[in-house]
């Protein structure tokens, strides 16, 4: 970049408005009159569409307007004088609103002066109360205008209808009369500025008559470049084609008008011109056929250029292409450091780093220049102090040029070892998808990375490609180094634990290495330690005679910090009823004492990735990220070498079960088969007990599936037990290296039920899945149960079913990635501009407060200890170990000390400190130290000002979305109850759907009712919605007596606890007489015609219960009886006596908002979302969920995360346009005369400025006045 371009300007604001025809003509450099582009010589025709005054495309030609060459000419607009006014398609809705709400003769608003005054004061009131005027206010004003007569000039008003795309029709007494664009324009001209303000217009920048075009701007040629094909034929841009059409028709229309042609022709031509102008703006407008190219392809016109994923906003403005980047396949290299990336030499020779020549590096730089671009450590360019750039490729005598180099020159040299580079793998779902690595130039053609960084990138080596970017400025490099380095990203902000750690063979290796039986000879120890780069003494050998032998545990201990003390249970822990601790027979009790691994096997729980509270986690938390990096580097190198030396493989033999296990599986299968046969028998006889709310067949399926699931599980268990830890598969599953015991079961014992849509397979032929079975055959085999294991092999039928199930799995994954991707996009868009301010509040870009303290305690989840601000108990344990003996501090003293830090700590930390200190018996000094350290650590765990907390939250919730199941249904608590869980439910929550797909209530009871089933049932009967239909065995019409007969069922009435009297009370109908005779009810309508209609209504007659409660289930949960319902109606249920009004809830957040308020809804949102994530086994910090919930409830209502909620209400026009509904957003902004303050993220990305978040927020302010008074708004540090 040359020095003259260094003038730095900042875009403060972008204002939107309409352009007036006057301004348009003034700006125009040429009136386009001919529809032609070039003449025979290929020169642009004057006054044609490619007129030279519009700018030039040819590289060496000069622009006829500004005299610049192609690169420097900004392009100039021309114009077309339209023969008749034309309605602009994007403004039709607004024009329609204006026509409806203003007088057709005098142009005044159709509100009396009084009402107008009131409306004005209403607008003003909103402005004072809310600071802005919500769109809804203007909408309601427009909808309120309904005058038949103008209150100002008394002219009668007629109804105006709008027909898509551009037709307005007025219903006068004389019949319907179309309004021509010129009539519309006249009417719009008459509207006064004051009236427009009431309607939400800003008449200073947007007069409504400008929405009807008289002049059409013609964009410069840069906007619509023509391309020359290989054959030499010029091909014009779609816009040019469209403009040609417009000019052609416009000229014809002009000629016809001048010649005084009949109105019919004029009208036809006007309509045609309207069509062309409409499609020029938007070729996808509804009610209009899209204009097509000769080939039949629809033209891509202005609107299409802007909107959508491939549109200007999302494709070119929000995302930009970059230089200094590379992409290639990745492959593993365990010999690298975790923060290194292996860069192929070919790549290193094309990417460059600008390095300033100084007196210290001048010699080196000269060498690089001499080497030039083709010899490896070389250089590509030299930039002289005057800004001139020399491409070394074209320099003949590089020696000579090297001599000329002096300090102050910049050499763009090849990438070399130790340079910093940014490494990325898409999809970039969280911030750990982009990390800074040190470059290591290596031979061959792939990028190489350490295996431990696979989890954050979610990378494997089946052909994955990754991108590498080289920061070019000193600032960029510094930021990358300080913020993005791999070791600083080990702890994930999602859950406050390490996301980087050992995987796969490292874990298997660790298991074998730290087994008690692993003894190593001196040679082996030497070899292993050399590989890790260990320098130091060897420990005392475990066995000294006949030859010295070391334990693996001893060698592993060499890499543990010397002061580390920790105890945990390994992955291989079998969860015995009574833990034997250090004497564990599986050696699963890991004890580290003073940096010495005393007992226990190291596996996934200790050093694995995504394991919180592991050994690795402790090392990083207590000894820092650098120690964590060293630990990972050394141990992985050690373990890699060890497992290479030892060897590890899994053979077919290890899949074969022992005969004993075989026969046990066979017996299990027989036993289950018998049970299923019983079910089949019962099902055929109809004696199968029906599950509530299910049909007989559904119940049968549920029973059978349940049995088959147990069959598979038991078989799997038998197989799993049959193998010992000598079996490679078992080693991998137990240690957590790879696979699960389910996989082992499927491989060795039984593959189990194949399902499609969560059900047994029953599709294809009628009543059967394949023609090999009898119709309606309910046996396991016929409906997709696979008895065989992968080891024995599937038979043809099983294989077919397996393929069906497998295919569903594939489809599922594809759908899921899409859904979770869109959810994440919405989350990011809604939260991107949320940051932490210096005063500790969380605010959006406009300065509106979202949270008064981030996450309610201000703690950064990434710096937290698995969500906890300070791990108090561990801290005190550590102090206790290191403490000298002395008198124990009194409870008084502890209390006094705690009091002094009360202000600095959260209530939760205070109470934890109090409890642990009371038990710990520390000395006074120890207590002081504990309290001081807690306060210090809490302070250090705080989120830093400027942090993009919104983006972090969005990523933390969005990223695990991909891992969630799409299987909608899941049994929660009660077997019979289906609840939507997983991704669909999470989407439902952030969507703020009015009604969830499975509304459910959990009703707690008070007093006696919760103690017995009978009590609970009593309440449940009052709650379940009961209609006449639920009580009658039959309802039919008696045509002879002209009445409806309802035959009541005694048992059904008893079931619902409804007496005859109660029913009679409810049967008081207004328009019918009701007679009750024993068990039958006769309903005779007063009018015979009513009979048919009544028959459809009578079954739904409400007798008892709460509306919307479809089903109730009474269950016992932790010692009390609760009612679970299908369907939800919180307000009504809470009114029923006996219902506990302090705990009863629903999963419908809107209902909670309505009956208990927004604050309750916020809490419900947190609980629901957290519940879904936990159910899926995903570890997400609550603070992220809280931020989303707070964001959704800031307005006092539950708002959606998406275009109808948060994203649609953003302050920035550009941010809204870039998200969804691009064009209407810009149109609205223009009409309102909005301006974009450019305070958010997307907006600044679009204009190419640094974003006001994180390091981009830091600015230097200088006060130039004695006293500055600022009215609220921004907080500046």
């Amino acid at each position, binding site marked *: 970049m040359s020095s003259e371009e260094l003038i730095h300007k900042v875009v403060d604001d972008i204002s939107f408005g309409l352009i007036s025809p006057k301004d348009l003509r003034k700006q125009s450099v040429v009136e386009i009159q001919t529809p032609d582009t070039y003449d025979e010589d290929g020169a642009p025709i004057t006054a044609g569409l490619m007129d030279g005054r519009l700018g030039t495309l040819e590289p060496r030609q000069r622009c006829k307007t500004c005299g610049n060459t192609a690169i420097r000419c900004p392009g100039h607009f021309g114009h077309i004088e339209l023969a008749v006014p034309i309605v602009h398609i994007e403004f039709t809705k607004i024009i329609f609103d204006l026509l409806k709400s203003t007088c057709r003769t005098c142009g005044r608003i159709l509100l009396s002066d009084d009402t107008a005054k009131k409306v004005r004061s209403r607008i003003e009131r909103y402005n004072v109360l809310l600071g802005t005027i919500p769109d809804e206010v203007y909408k309601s004003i427009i909808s309120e205008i309904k005058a038949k007569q103008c209150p100002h000039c008394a002219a009668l008003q007629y109804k105006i209808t709008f027909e898509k795309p551009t037709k307005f029709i007025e219903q006068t007494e004389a019949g319907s009369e179309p309004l021509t664009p010129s009539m519309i324009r006249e009417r719009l001209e008459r509207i006064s500025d004051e009236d427009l303000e009431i309607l939400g217009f800003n008449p200073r920048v947007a007069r409504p008559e400008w929405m009807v075009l008289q002049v059409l701007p013609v964009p410069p040629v840069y906007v619509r470049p023509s391309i020359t094909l290989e054959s030499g034929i010029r091909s014009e841009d779609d816009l040019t084609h469209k403009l040609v059409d417009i000019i052609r028709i416009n000229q014809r229309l002009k000629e016809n008008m001048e010649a005084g042609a009949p109105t019919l022709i004029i009208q036809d031509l006007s309509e045609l011109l309207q069509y062309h102008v409409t499609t020029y703006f938007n070729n996808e407008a509804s009610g209009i056929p899209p204009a097509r190219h000769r080939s039949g392809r629809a033209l891509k016109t202005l609107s299409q250029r802007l909107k959508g994923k491939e549109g200007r906003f999302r494709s070119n403005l929000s995302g930009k292409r970059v230089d200094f980047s590379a992409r290639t396949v990745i492959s593993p290299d365990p010999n690298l450091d975790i923060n290194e990336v292996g860069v192929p030499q070919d790549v290193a020779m094309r990417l460059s780093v600008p390095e300033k020549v100084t007196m210290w590096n001048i010699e080196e730089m000269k060498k690089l220049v001499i080497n030039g671009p083709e010899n490896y450590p070389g250089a590509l360019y030299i930039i002289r102090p005057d800004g001139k750039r020399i491409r070394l490729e074209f320099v003949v005598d590089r020696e000579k040029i090297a001599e000329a180099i002096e300090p102050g020159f910049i050499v763009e040299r090849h990438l070399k070892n130790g340079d910093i580079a940014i490494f990325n793998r898409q999809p970039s779902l969280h911030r750990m998808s982009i990390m800074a690595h040190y470059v290591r130039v290596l031979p061959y053609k792939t990028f190489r990375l350490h295996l431990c960084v696979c989890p954050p990138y979610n990378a494997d080596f089946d052909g994955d490609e990754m991108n590498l970017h080289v920061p070019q400025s000193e600032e960029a490099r510094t930021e990358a180094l300080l913020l993005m380095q791999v070791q600083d990203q080990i702890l994930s902000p999602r859950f406050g634990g390490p996301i980087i750690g050992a995987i796969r063979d490292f874990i298997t290796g660790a298991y074998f290495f730290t087994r008690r039986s692993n003894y190593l000879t001196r040679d082996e120890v030497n070899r292993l330690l050399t590989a890790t780069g260990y320098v130091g003494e060897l420990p005392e050998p475990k066995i000294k005679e006949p030859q010295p032998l070391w334990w693996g545990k001893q060698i592993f201990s060499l890499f543990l910090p010397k002061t580390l003390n920790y105890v945990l249970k390994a992955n291989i822990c079998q969860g015995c009823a009574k833990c034997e601790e250090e004497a564990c027979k599986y050696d699963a009790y890991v004890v580290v004492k003073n940096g010495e691994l005393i007992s226990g096997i190291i596996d996934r729980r200790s050093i694995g990735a995504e394991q919180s509270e592991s050994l690795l986690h402790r090392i990083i938390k207590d000894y820092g990220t650098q120690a964590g990096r060293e630990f990972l580097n050394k141990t992985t190198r050690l373990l890699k070498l060890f497992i290479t030396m030892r060897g590890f493989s899994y053979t077919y033999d290890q899949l074969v079960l022992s005969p004993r296990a075989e026969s046990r599986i066979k017996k299990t299968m027989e036993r289950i088969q018998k049970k299923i046969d019983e079910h089949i028998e019962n099902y055929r006889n109809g004696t199968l007990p029906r599950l509530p709310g299910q049909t007989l067949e559904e119940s049968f399926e549920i029973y059978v599936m349940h049995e088959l699931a147990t069959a598979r599980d038991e078989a799997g268990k038998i197989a799993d037990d049959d193998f010992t830890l000598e079996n490679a598969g078992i080693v991998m599953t137990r240690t957590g290296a790879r696979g699960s015991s389910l996989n082992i079961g499927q491989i060795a014992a039984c593959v189990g039920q194949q399902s499609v849509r969560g059900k047994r397979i029953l599709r294809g032929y009628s009543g059967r899945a394949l023609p090999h079975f009898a119709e309606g055959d309910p046996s396991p085999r016929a409906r997709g149960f696979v008895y065989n294991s992968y080891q024995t092999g599937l038979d043809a039928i099983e294989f077919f079913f397996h393929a069906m199930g497998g295919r569903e799995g594939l489809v599922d994954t594809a759908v899921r990635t899409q859904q979770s991707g869109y959810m994440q996009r919405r989350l990011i868009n809604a939260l991107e501009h949320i940051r932490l301010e210096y005063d500790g509040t969380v605010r959006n870009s406009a300065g*509106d407060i979202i949270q008064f303290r981030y996450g309610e305690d201000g703690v950064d989840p990434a710096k937290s200890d698995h969500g906890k601000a300070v791990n108090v108990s561990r801290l005190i344990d550590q102090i206790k170990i290191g403490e000298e003996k002395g008198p124990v501090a009194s409870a008084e003293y502890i209390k006094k000390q705690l009091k002094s830090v009360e202000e600095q700590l959260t209530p939760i930390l205070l109470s934890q400190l109090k409890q642990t200190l009371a038990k710990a018996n520390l000395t006074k000094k120890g207590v002081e130290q504990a309290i001081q350290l807690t306060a210090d650590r809490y302070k250090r765990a705080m989120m830093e000002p400027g942090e993009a907390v919104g983006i972090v939250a969005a990523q933390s919730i969005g990223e695990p979305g991909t891992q969630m199941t799409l299987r909608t249904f899941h049994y929660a608590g009660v077997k019979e109850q289906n609840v939507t869980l997983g991704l669909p439910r999470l989407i439902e929550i952030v969507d703020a759907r009015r009604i969830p797909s499975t509304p459910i209530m959990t009703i707690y009871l008070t007093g006696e009712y919760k103690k017995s089933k009978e009590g609970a049932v009593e309440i449940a009967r009052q709650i379940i919605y009961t209609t006449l239909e639920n009580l009658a065995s039959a309802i039919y019409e008696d045509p002879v007596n002209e009445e409806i007969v309802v035959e009541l069922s005694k048992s059904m009435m008893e079931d619902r606890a409804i007496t005859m009297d109660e029913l009679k009370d409810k049967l008081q109908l207004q328009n019918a007489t009701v007679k009750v005779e024993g068990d039958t009810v006769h309903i005779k309508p007063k009018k015979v015609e009513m009979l048919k209609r009544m028959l459809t209504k009578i079954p739904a007659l409400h007798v008892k219960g709460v509306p919307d409660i479809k089903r109730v289930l009474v269950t016992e949960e932790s010692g009390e009886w609760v009612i679970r319902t299908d369907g939800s109606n919180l307000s009504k249920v809470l009114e029923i006596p006996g219902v506990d009004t302090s705990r009863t809830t629903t999963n419908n957040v809107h209902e909670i908002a309505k009956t208990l308020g927004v604050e309750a809804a916020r*809490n419900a949102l947190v609980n629901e979302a957290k519940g879904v994530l936990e159910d899926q086994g995903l570890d997400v910090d609550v603070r992220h969920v809280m931020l989303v919930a707070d964001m959704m409830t800031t307005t006092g209502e539950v708002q959606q995360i998406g275009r109808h909620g948060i994203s649609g209400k953003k302050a920035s026009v550009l941010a809204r346009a870039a998200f969804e509904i691009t064009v209407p957003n810009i149109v609205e902004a223009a009409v309102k005369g909005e301006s974009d303050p450019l305070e958010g993220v997307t907006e600044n990305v679009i204009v190419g400025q640094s974003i006001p978040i994180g390091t981009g927020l830091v600015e230097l302010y200088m006060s130039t006045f004695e006293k500055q008074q600022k009215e609220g708004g921004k907080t500046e540090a």
Partner: protein
Amino acid sequence: MTVETVTVEERKAEVLIKLRKYKLIKKETHEGAISYIIKIPEDKENAVVWCFLGATTVGIAAMNTLYKFMKEHELERAIVITEGRYTHAVKQATRKKNVELLPKSFPVFDIFEHALVPRHEILSTKEKDELLAKLKVQPYQMPQIKSTDPAVKAIGAKPGDVLRIIRKSQTAGEHIAYRYVVE
């Protein structure tokens, strides 16, 4: 809740009096209505909570009985409770008077006893000004709460008030948030 309270209206009235910390002075039974004369802590004058029992609609005629009562007892302020709906005319008429129409959806129980509902308190003008100065914001830049929100109705806050919300927090134990009451 006491055992004698029979009707839903009475239960609501009692909940209301409890939540808004009114002092009950006298309870009277009238034809189709019950009145509670109360003392509102901040107000000098007494006020009345008027329950229309079992009414399906509350029209001007019904309201006139209330007005009469208010005149007799020289009361300026009233709160109306009903299980029915208010006619449009009543809503219009009460807009200017110091009569608050409690919506039908007002709960019959103390919502603050519910586990999901944190405590809400109205800030005094002084507290409010201090808070706004400390945060350097306009009131509307804070999180908002609708004046129709059940919690707002329960404590009787009005648009323009700022509420202090004392949340139980999973991370901090206790957390104080604020919301600005809007229409």
